[in-house]
């Protein structure tokens, strides 16, 4: 069995945990009471972890380019390969949208994005009118689409592991 590289596997699972965590954090923090002790730090964590995800995302794309993933399993149907490929592409596009829109919300009035107090990502564009509202909508829809796609992606992996009993999932473990 030809596995994904150790780096690719690490990046995959780190990002899976990070993205699901950020989604939950994002949904949760918007419902917080003003007097919750997390009201102030939660968005700070969300932004900080988000920027870490952007770095992992960039690293992952570079790594994928330099170390192409293993070929699809020989017995997979052409439509299965196409579907899996389309899903992966969708993840990249949707995640890029989440990252860009998140950055645009945080920098909507020329404030930098904090990264765990270690550094601050400066605003790179002059804000446009209604930036935080438009970026907010994009962020929400794109994040939900990532989570729905992740559920389908996981369902596919489990189906291959349990029903087809092939190595699709094990290659990533």
């Amino acid at each position: 069995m030809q596995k994904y590289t150790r780096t690719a596997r690490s990046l995959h699972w780190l990002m899976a945990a990070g993205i699901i965590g950020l989604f939950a954090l994002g949904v949760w923090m918007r419902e917080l009471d003003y007097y919750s002790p997390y009201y102030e730090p939660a968005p700070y964590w969300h932004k900080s972890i988000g920027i870490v995800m952007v770095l992992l995302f960039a690293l992952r794309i570079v790594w994928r380019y330099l170390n192409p993933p293993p070929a699809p399993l020989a017995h997979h149907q052409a439509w299965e390969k196409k579907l899996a490929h389309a899903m992966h592409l969708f993840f990249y596009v949707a995640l890029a949208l989440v990252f860009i829109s998140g950055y645009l919300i945080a920098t909507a009035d020329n404030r930098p994005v904090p990264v765990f107090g270690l550094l601050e990502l400066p605003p790179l564009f002059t804000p446009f009118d209604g930036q935080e509202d438009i970026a907010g909508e994009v962020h929400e829809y794109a994040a939900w689409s990532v989570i729905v796609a992740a559920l389908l992606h996981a369902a596919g992996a489990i189906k291959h592991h349990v029903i087809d009993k092939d190595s699709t999932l094990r290659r990533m473990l």
Partner: protein
Amino acid sequence: MKKFIAASAISLGLFSAPLFAAENYTIDTKGMHAFVEFKISHLGTSWLKGRFNDFNGTFSYDDKTPANNKVSVTIKTASVDTNHAERNKHLRSKDFLDTDKFPEAKFESTKVEKTGAKTANIYGKLSLHGVTKDIVIAATEVGAGNDPWGGFRRGFEGTTTLKLKDFGINYNLGPASETVEMHLNIEGIRQ
């Protein structure tokens, strides 16, 4: 025939003009000599100030017949500005102004009661967040006079206090932050 038309025009004009005409003013939002500002306590430690940037209105002023005095102002709620994009976004959300559902707030006066030479209580209905309530604005005339560009202007300052809960805004900001003080400055150009 020409004479007749001219005569009727004049008489109609005379009839339609009230004896004591109120002066009608448009609030100068074009040159922005008007401000709808608010302040609310932050945790009881400081004042948070903000304003609405987009509004328009008119008023009628009649020194002799108080019943002719009127004010009408419409505010675009989405223009709330507290100098912090994420907070503005939160204020526009369902937690506060719900500006998608209630894009406008409106004040329509019902009665103006003089309380002094330059002061008056302006009674009226404020529609905000889908709730219409009677409020009173304590107003003071700041000044009036010709402007340097051929117009005539009159300006007022007013304050009122609103309870957020009265308007169905129930987000808990703490016991010190249940009321918001409105501070209004308007300058009208006589039409």
